[in-house]
């Protein structure tokens, strides 16, 4: 594979880091300038990442070594197809959420907005860093930065429950990070390298037992961030954070970083061969299937809209890991597609929940009956997102689900096909009552005449909803998610 040396990956990272400090030093006295920095940083970052897209599509790798640490370890950025998917997703949605945040935070006149925007930018620095890392060591560094930078966002409200949620968040994620640190040390000890390679690099190192232990430690470590059951508890609690945080960080950056790392471990550290030799893939697949089903059943029982969405997130994250664990080319493609597509759809849903909260201060689904009359645009977007997650064409969720189902067939495991289908059915079971209630029931707690949220809140929702539709119709549009996913699958299985 051809390698291009370029500083662009570094610049893409620095855009949000420098942006973060500009935000911090501008402070609360000039909010317009501060928000300008946020949006400017987001747009610059997206531009830098897009500028690398042509190289990556040609099968080249964009590389930049920051500094060498030790034999075989360097702080190194390497942009490959899979990293590109996540980087594009995070940086693209950051722009949307920045605009939304401005509308949301001002609409509610929230406190500590400087800290909020500062940590947000820092979290994005971490998330794109995770996406662009060329080896486990660099990845761990950004992973930790992401964890720490999100903590102030989770406790943003500073109510006793928020602080409790923050502690829970740290307890789960730092313990997970400790597992990762252990596995990273062991991997280096066994192989002498930490560089990701498509198809894995641990083959032939260490005994079977040791490799199995290593794999379990990795999955526990990164799985804590990917909210695999039973280590998911922090995610629903963290829904106490302001909605844009839940939207970007808990539907896109943080938990997606978790699954992204899990996929890196499965496909780029262990690789299909080792995992099928060890028979670990089937264990993992059964393990995450449990979360897939149980999370959806729990989601049925939630009345708080954000918590219901949180459990739907847990379900989708586990589906992504399930797709990768099947180790079939269609499954991998479907899993990699679901990362950005789920991001677009879930962010729409979260932003809708936020828009409803800004306008009506309602959080419970039972109180939202008839909201479709007051906020038709928001609820139309919600319908698109929900339909997509259920897997109804032509929304993009269908495409990824389709390939995941093909992947299950390709792996000759009908049971996982059943898991996917049952999960889609349950998706429908908990989304459609909301939509039905919103449009067809009489309003009890909301007005029956048109009264939408501020334009800065509604516009991003419309954009992501349209995005979800477009990616369903043209999965390879604009930023070539489809091609990137196919190339990654090919590299992993073929090379």
């Amino acid at each position: 594979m051809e390698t291009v040396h370029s500083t662009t990956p570094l610049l893409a990272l620095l855009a949000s880091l420098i942006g973060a400090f500009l935000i911090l030093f501008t402070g609360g006295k000039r909010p317009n300038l501060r928000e300008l920095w946020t949006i400017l940083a987001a747009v610059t970052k997206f531009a830098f990442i897009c500028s690398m897209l042509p190289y990556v599509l040609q099968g080249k790798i964009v590389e930049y070594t920051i500094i060498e640490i030790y034999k075989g370890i360097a702080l190194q950025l390497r942009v490959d197809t899979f990293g590109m998917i996540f980087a594009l997703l995070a940086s693209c949605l950051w722009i949307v959420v920045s605009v939304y945040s401005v509308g949301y935070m001002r609409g509610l006149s929230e406190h500590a907005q400087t800290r909020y925007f500062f940590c947000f930018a820092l979290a994005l620095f971490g998330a794109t860093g995770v996406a662009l890392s060329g080896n486990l060591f660099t990845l761990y560094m950004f992973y930790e930065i992401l964890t720490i930078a999100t903590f102030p966002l989770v406790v943003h409200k500073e109510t006793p429950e928020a602080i409790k949620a923050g502690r829970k968040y740290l307890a789960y994620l730092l313990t997970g990070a400790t597992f990762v640190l252990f596995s990273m040390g062991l991997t280096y000890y066994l192989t002498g390298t930490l560089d990701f390679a498509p198809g894995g690099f641990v083959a032939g190192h260490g005994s079977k037992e040791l490799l199995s232990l290593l794999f379990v430690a990795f999955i526990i470590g990164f799985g804590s961030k990917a909210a695999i059951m039973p280590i998911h508890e922090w995610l629903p609690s963290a829904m106490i954070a302001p909605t844009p945080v839940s939207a970007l960080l808990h539907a896109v950056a943080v938990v997606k970083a978790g699954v992204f790392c899990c996929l890196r471990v499965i496909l780029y550290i262990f690789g299909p061969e080792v995992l099928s030799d060890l028979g670990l893939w089937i264990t993992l697949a059964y393990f995450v299937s449990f979360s897939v089903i149980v999370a959806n059943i729990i989601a049925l029982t939630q009345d708080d809209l954000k918590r219901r969405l949180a459990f739907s997130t847990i379900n989708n994250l586990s589906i992504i890991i399930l797709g990768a664990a099947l180790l079939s080319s269609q499954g991998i493609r479907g899993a990699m597609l679901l990362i950005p597509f789920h991001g677009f759809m879930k962010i729409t849903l979260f932003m809708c929940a936020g828009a409803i909260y800004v306008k009506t201060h309602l959080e419970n689904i039972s109180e939202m009956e008839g909201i479709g009359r007051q906020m038709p645009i928001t609820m139309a977007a919600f319908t698109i997102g929900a339909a997509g997650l259920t897997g109804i064409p032509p929304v993009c969720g269908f495409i990824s689900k389709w390939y995941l189902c093909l992947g299950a067939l390709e792996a000759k495991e009908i049971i996982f096909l059943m898991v996917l289908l049952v999960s889609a059915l349950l998706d429908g079971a908990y989304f459609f009552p909301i939509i039905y209630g919103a449009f067809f029931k009489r309003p009890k707690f909301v007005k029956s005449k048109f009264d939408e949220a501020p334009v800065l809140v509604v516009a991003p929702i419309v954009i992501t909803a349209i995005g979800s539709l477009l990616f369903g119709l043209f999965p390879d549009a604009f930023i070539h998610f489809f091609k990137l996913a196919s190339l990654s699958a090919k590299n992993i299985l073929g090379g």
Partner: protein
Amino acid sequence: MILEQLPALIVVTPLILSLVVNVVGLWDKRLCFPIVAVTLFACLIWAIGILWRVIDHGTIHYCFGNWQPPWGIEYVIDHLNALVLVSVAVVSLLVAIYAKRAVDQEIPESKLPQFYTLFLLQVTGLFGITATGDMFNLYVLLEIASFSAYAIIAMGERGADFAAFRYLIFGTIGACAYLLGVGYLYILTGSLNMADLTQLLPKLFYSKALLVGFSFFLVGVGIKMGIFPLHTWLPDAYTLAPSTVSALLAPLYTKVGAYVIIRIIFTVFDPSFSIKLYPVMDILGWIAAIGIMFACIMALAQSDLKRMLCYVIVAEMGYILIGIASANRLGLTGAILHIVNDMFMMACLFTVAGAIFYQTGTRNIYQFRYLHRTMPVTLAVFVVGALSVVGVPPMCGFFSKWYLILGTIQAEKWVLLAVLLISSLIYAILFFRVIENAYLEPREAHASAHDSGHPAVTLDKVPWSMLVPMLLIAAGIILLGIFSGKIIMHIIQFAVPESL
């Protein structure tokens, strides 16, 4: 010409000027600080000069008065102690600048000359311990450092005199143990020169007397560096000492002790003595493991920030011991890197504790509420230091921890690995408890965003002469992390004995 004399200059300069400060201080107290600052700045230049020469030309040998070793006193500076020298010089200079205003509240003006004299004597001792290549000379300088420490700690708040006295008794027992060790070696070999001993000792490895001497060394230095269970003097002494003094002693004194232990185990005695002949490494490993867990739990129980940090030091010394106990290249690399990193981390945290005390008069963690409004810069520095101790990259603490972890994995010492990982989690609890108290303002669920009655957001009221050194130390923590690879490639890999 002057380059040849650097090893002597770095000890002699602060020694002579400590006397000058005392005399000049009688005449005009305002002159004390500039003299100290210039002296330490000169020392920093000497130290950098030494390091540069060592990197270029290898080990430096310097014979005092041109008396040839093993009879004369010889200073031997290789990569290991050159690195320690530079770190000591940097930290002591920054702490000295910090001291100028920090002592305002804590030291009566009439005692300032004595304070600065002791400050310089302390640094003299630390430089000497690090530079010397002679076992007895090391004892002398250890006592210079210790005695100035006893006196300077006693200048602290109520109860400091008692803590200093307790420290004096412990410290003297430690010094006696060390001196007895030197005596044993001298009786057995007739030599006090380290390089000479390295040659002579292997023939005597099976002598029981040598083992007794070695044990005396471990106990003696162990007391000085505050290894569990010999640490009992440490929390009281460093908590009650003036903030500046804790900021000087806590990072440097214990770490120089750790350097001495590495020197004795790996240079004076051949590593095989502790690895193959006797289970020294296993014993050290267990002591470190128990000590870290004990210190972490004790730290959790503290509400006084400084006392909490004191227990963190005890745990950090355990980290260094783990690196030594791994007895391989990676572990020892981690231990040496951790000596340097920990100097900066502890300097960072103790100067922050001092600055908070300076502005608010409290060290109680539970009284830190709203502190982020009045001391934003100080707390930002604290966060950097805290994350470094917890082990979050790219702060330096992570990198040494990484090598320590690799060392334990390679040595297959799983208990030590578990201790390293678990203690990082306990550190996270420790430091996030402080961060939570200082940054978060618990409020009711739907309280209005415009709160009233709380202090407005302002810059710290701590003088710039204190803030700037703190910021520099924080920057140092991040830079040491990012450039740890360079430090290892150019310095530490030569400091680790070939035989490992």
